[in-house]
């Protein structure tokens, strides 16, 4: 019931309320929104269900104490960084071999940064830039964004592995952004 009543308050509003009132109630509501995702992140690194659960609890305790000390603007990214670093620290302490798929490069700044006035132009430039992507990236970006195929469908259609598909989509999108920005600068 409580979850429902706070559903329409944004993360930023809850964070502002917490900063203003210094009441952990707001923080509790906010953090519960990310329990599932953080559990997933911890599970990815720790590969153990109980350890992942304990790690999320520790991350929450850390967040409760640290958030009062620091000015945090992007809570979601901050939570992810804390969870990831906590898991990596645990793995280092256990002297486990870390096998993290670092080959994936993620797009940090969304392409939606372009202003609405630029959108028409951006779409034209995007269409041109698509042709400049390498073949695997072009195929995966087309299948994913234009034909709205799922990752699994793309794996079946192309014969690439799931990891490759994700990587081609992420890198393809990043490259498109760079190409469009370059064309815009050139006028």
């Amino acid at each position, binding site marked *: 019931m409580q979850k429902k009543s706070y559903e329409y308050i944004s993360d930023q509003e809850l964070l502002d309320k917490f900063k203003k009132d210094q009441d952990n109630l707001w923080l509790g509501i906010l953090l519960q929104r990310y*329990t599932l995702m953080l*559990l997933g992140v911890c*599970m990815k690194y720790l590969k153990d269900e109980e350890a992942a659960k304990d790690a999320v609890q520790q991350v*929450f305790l850390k967040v409760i104490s640290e958030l009062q000390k620091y000015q945090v603007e992007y809570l*979601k990214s901050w939570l992810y960084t804390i969870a990831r670093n906590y898991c990596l620290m645990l793995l280092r302490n256990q002297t486990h071999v870390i096998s993290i798929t670092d080959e994936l490069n*993620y797009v940090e700044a969304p392409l939606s940064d372009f202003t609405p006035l630029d*959108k028409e132009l951006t779409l034209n430039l*995007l269409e041109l830039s698509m042709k400049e992507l390498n073949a695997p990236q072009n195929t995966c970006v087309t299948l994913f964004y234009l034909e709205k195929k799922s*990752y699994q469908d793309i794996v079946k259609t192309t014969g690439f592995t799931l990891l490759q598909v994700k990587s081609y989509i992420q890198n393809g999108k990043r490259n498109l952004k760079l190409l469009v920005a370059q064309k815009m600068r050139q006028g």
Partner: protein
Amino acid sequence: MSELKNILNQGPQPTEDALKRYLKGTSSEEERFTIENQMADEAFMNDAIEGLQEFKDQNHVQDYVNKINKELNKHTFKKKRRKLNNLIEDKNWTLVTVVLIIILCILGYFVINLTMQQKFHGTIEQQKK
């Protein structure tokens, strides 16, 4: 051409229920695209989904979430309640203090008034004598 806008749009943040449906393979095409689009954009979403897919039984995921949230509530709602109780206690004490001061003022007024009257009657009687 119009589908190119999908590359520009990051899409809305998927809800927790949408994530669960995706993990169970029961999400709609639109929901599936929204989540995978987020996965392509955010390392957080990508890692979260990959990790959640590693749970042996997806039905247990909710049990873990409930346990974590229950523990979290101990650290958040309890403090709130304590703070609220402290506030109520503080307010009660303020009220008691105000009432006591008022009672003391009224008593003081009557005592002073009575003393003044006695003194006044005493002087009149002395004058009469």
